């Protein structure tokens, strides 16, 4: 099974990954929107953290073995994909109780307010992470 390898020392802080993630998870425009693209970028599910020592840290879901978000969900909406190893959110099962957003000790499960309040987290793009594809330095690598 491929893994998303993160090497902070290689990160230049260009944030192409955030952009790639936002477009890979684009959402339908709300009704009545004036723009005519049909889609708009979603909330990026990973962030680059610029630490004071000038190092950049890509922050994204660690797909924990014993994940608190999974344990927190009483509705079975969060489950590991057998094909990619990612913990994926089945938004049809989600009741928006938001316990998962509080349960993740790393802050990697969030509420996407613009999407009418859907919970979002990294899904490894179902096995082809856009962030790794667009990372120019190899700080994020899918192998």
């Amino acid at each position: 099974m491929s893994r998303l390898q993160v090497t902070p020392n290689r990160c230049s802080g260009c944030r192409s990954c955030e952009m790639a993630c936002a477009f890979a998870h684009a959402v339908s425009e709300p009704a009545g929107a004036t723009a005519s693209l049909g889609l708009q970028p979603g909330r990026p599910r990973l962030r680059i953290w610029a630490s004071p020592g000038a190092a950049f840290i890509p922050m994204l879901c660690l797909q924990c073995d014993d994940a608190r978000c999974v344990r927190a969900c009483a509705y079975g909406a969060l489950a590991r994909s057998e094909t990619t190893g990612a913990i994926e959110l089945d938004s049809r099962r989600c009741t928006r109780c938001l316990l998962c957003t509080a349960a993740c000790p790393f802050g990697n499960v969030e509420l996407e307010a613009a999407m009418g309040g859907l919970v979002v987290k990294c899904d490894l793009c179902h096995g082809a992470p856009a962030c790794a594809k667009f990372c120019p330095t190899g700080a994020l690598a899918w192998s």
Partner: protein
Amino acid sequence: MIELNIDGVKVMAPEGARLLDAARDAGFRVPSLCHHPAVEPEGACRLCVVELRGAGEEHSRVVPSCLEVARAGMTVATASEDVLSVRRTVLELLLQRSPASPVLRALAAQAGMETAAGPLGDAHGCILCGLCTRVCAAAGFHAISTLGRGAEARVGGPGGQPPQDCVGCAACAHVCPTGHIALEESGSRRGIWGRDFELLPCAECGVPTIPREQAERAASSLGFPSADLARCPACNRKATAVTFGRIVALSSTDAREGVKR
């Protein structure tokens, strides 16, 4: 996988799947109000009826598709005359109860029905489908239930009082198909079922997170550290990044100085 026939199309469905899920997964549109994938189906709203003839059966019958398990060789019609007629009757009855409900009126319009115009009184939208109580029970709270009988039936806390077991998660309001459950949020307060909840302020930045009661319940029943639950996702991420930053700084210093450990 099993094979069945829906509206003349061959459809594959996983063993044990309910007809409603099998039909929807195959792209057929079947209306429903009380169905939610997070909980077991109950067949309360009756809108998801389909016409079904089992393998080797002579006659067809109209059944709620959420309750029926898909079996090999079934022949299913999602929009036959009988189905549409039953669906219209169901909608008529629901509209008798809640004539002003926008959700019901939209469904009626889709079904080609005329709906009453003019002042309709309260937008009383509860259809007693019980989805809220099922979702509450699935989370282990059992805070709300159906009260009273007949025309007096309604959903609420024990004895019609604000439910003491409610933690304010508002899952019931989010799944309610007619948007009937009143949820009031302003700043760090959340009002639901006659209770007033405080949304815990993030220990770092102060933004409101989840209700205090919900966090306390998670800490005690799931064993999550209260300190983690007391921060918003952004501040939790920041704290993790700072730790990672230290590790990265340490390891690169080690590399430069050739430190062996």
